[in-house]
């Protein structure tokens, strides 16, 4: 079974915000709501890095755990979605989410908070696939059209990868190896630093 995931390659992201625009256009996301945004670390300093962030479709999603009305669900492909007809707009999910994914449209003089809106991995919601109701509430259902999320497919540098987790992880791994990097950006080395005996460890044992 495919498990849908995003990976953003910080070495390739050029902070063009094309993913943000593609998402907003494809899903008719209202003003004030950004399902996806580009975050830049050390902005303006040489060597700055940018990554595109949206809902990570967590395997053990904290938004789902704290929702008092149980409006979240996870599809067979691992996409975390919610039912806007059940959501009460309380905002608990936004406090629980470490990525700031849940967004709330506000309108009117008093900043009335509407129902939660977030990245759907372009998989719509609990309405009939491709229906007008689904499109109006959640946006486009590209997965059911045999496509991948608009943000990833529109990314000009292919920094943002989206799709089957195994496929995108393998694509990213290939890039890392082609850059002459190894486990310091891929495996255990991300936590413990660059290995000192890479070739000796990686070489197969000779008998």
């Amino acid at each position: 079974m495919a498990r849908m995931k995003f990976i953003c390659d910080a070495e390739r992201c050029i902070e063009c915000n094309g993913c943000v625009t593609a998402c907003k256009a494809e899903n008719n996301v209202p003003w004030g709501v950004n399902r996806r945004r580009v975050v830049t670390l050390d902005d303006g300093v040489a060597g700055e890095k940018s990554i595109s962030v949206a809902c990570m479709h967590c395997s053990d999603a904290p938004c789902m755990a704290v929702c008092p009305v149980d409006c979240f669900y996870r599809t067979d492909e691992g996409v975390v979605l919610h039912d806007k007809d059940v959501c009460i707009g309380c905002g608990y999910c936004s406090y629980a989410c470490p990525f700031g994914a849940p967004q709330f449209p506000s309108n009117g003089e008093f900043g009335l908070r509407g129902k939660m809106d977030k990245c759907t991995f372009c998989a719509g919601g609990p309405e009939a696939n491709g229906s007008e109701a689904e499109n109006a509430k959640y946006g486009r259902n590209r997965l059911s059209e045999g496509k991948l999320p608009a943000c990833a497919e529109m990314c000009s540098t292919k920094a943002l990868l989206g799709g089957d987790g195994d496929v995108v992880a393998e694509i990213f791994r290939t890039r890392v190896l082609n850059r002459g990097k190894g486990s310091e950006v891929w495996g255990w080395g991300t936590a413990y630093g660059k290995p000192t005996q890479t070739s000796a460890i990686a070489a197969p044992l000779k008998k």
Partner: protein
Amino acid sequence: MNRLGVVLSSAVAAALLGCGEKPQSLDGSSSRKADEQAWAVSSTAEPAFAAKGWKATGDKAAWEQQIRQRGQAQNDYAR
């Protein structure tokens, strides 16, 4: 006197109705709607929006294959 008693008891009964309490605990029977599978053939989907050369047939394996293939289009080392 009898009439006053009827009126009073009716008023008390009406007031007590407001004290009723609905169960508020989640019992797993949420009113959340069930979602269609991504590979399902939907009557509401517009076929013209489907990926070029692909058509939803309700076959899960075919849909997964399509998604994997589409994912590989992001791999510039495989072009």
